């Protein structure tokens, strides 16, 4: 309850403060030997501090967790996370003021994911025999870094690397696990810091 309240308050706070909307469409590869695709939406909430909601999904199933039985199949993963992005202002370093189009960043996030979106799986009973959907949700943390190269004022390429640590799901008796993912995407929205007077 506390978590949900905290996340909701933060989202409302961020939406009210968010300035230019930034949208990234990306595709990538994870260390679980799967391809993934996703979208990230967000904006700046403070100086050099951005907030993004990141949603992604595996394109192909993870062979190690895949099962032909739909109720047992955990080879897919779709997740949504709230990420705080700290942009590194390279262009504030002496002599580098022209490099404002290069935007390195660190991000830390908190999210939830599902290992299978099929109806059968979502009705799978947990260890207590309950079939509620929420018990299938797996909480995960993400931490990573990336680089945005703006090709124009409002369009750029984003390289992102992050580690996703999936928590243990006690109710479903799933162990914790983690994977790393690298993605490349196109982003829209001004990251420029240059001020016009």
């Amino acid at each position, binding site marked *: 309850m*506390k*978590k949900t309240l*905290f996340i909701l308050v933060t989202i409302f706070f961020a939406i009210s403060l968010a300035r230019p909307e930034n949208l990234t469409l990306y595709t990538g590869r994870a260390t679980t030997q799967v391809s993934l695709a996703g979208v990230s939406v967000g904006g700046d909430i*403070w*100086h*050099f*501090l951005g907030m993004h909601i990141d949603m992604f999904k595996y394109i192909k199933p993870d062979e190690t967790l895949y099962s032909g039985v739909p109720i047992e199949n955990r080879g897919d993963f779709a997740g949504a996370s709230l990420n*705080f992005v*700290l942009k*590194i*202002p390279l*262009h*504030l*370093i*002496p002599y580098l*003021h022209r490099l*404002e189009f290069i935007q390195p960043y*660190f991000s*830390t*996030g*908190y999210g939830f994911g599902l290992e299978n979106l099929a109806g059968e799986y979502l009705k799978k009973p947990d260890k207590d025999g309950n079939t509620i959907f929420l018990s299938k949700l797996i909480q995960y*943390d993400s*931490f990573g870094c990336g680089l945005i190269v703006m090709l124009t004022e409002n369009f750029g390429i984003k390289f992102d690397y992050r580690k996703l640590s999936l928590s243990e799901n006690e109710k479903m008796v799933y162990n914790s696990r983690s994977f790393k993912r690298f993605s490349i995407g196109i982003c829209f929205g001004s990251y420029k*810091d*240059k*001020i*016009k*007077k």
Partner: protein
Amino acid sequence: MKNKKIIIAFFQITILLLSSPYFFSQEKIESKEDFNMCKNYYKSGEYDKAIKCFSDVIWKATNTNLITNAHVYLGLTYYTIGDRQQARNHLISAIGLKPDKYLDQVDFSADFINFFRDIKPEFVGIGYIESTPPNAFVYHNNKIIGATPFKKELLPGEFSLTIVKWGYPPIEANINIMNNEITNLSIDFSKQKSWKTFFRSSFVVIALHYILKLL
């Protein structure tokens, strides 16, 4: 055999480079010598020769400073022989090439300096740029033209400038220079993003990172 070819090629390249105008500009030296000769004509009272000579320098020289000085001296020569209109025309040309040109009392008479000072404001305005904090670089066409507080005589028109203070994002500003007027531009960096705000944001991100883990 191979080494011999390399040595020959090296000498050929060296000779080619030395003969290139980038390395040794005969034309520039000749123009400067011509300019000094023209000044001597003026000093010895041979004004016709001085006029022709300075005109030749303007025609031949490629260096803006030299052309500007030649215009000033041509103006001085015309001023001395009483042709104020021609003197004015050449001083205007000099101002057009170098709006912040000033005349030194060592080289020019007070009368001529005053004549020049009367003409200048008709064609030049003053741009005054200050910033908080000071010592910000002023860029025009990707070249540093000074540091704040910055005062420069400029030809009338609109100038796009980029003011760069290390530790703050660059600020793009336009300044509209009008003749015979001082145009002020004040830039306040203190309200912009800076390293200070970055460190504050870093602290917030680190705090959020741990709060999310604790929840």
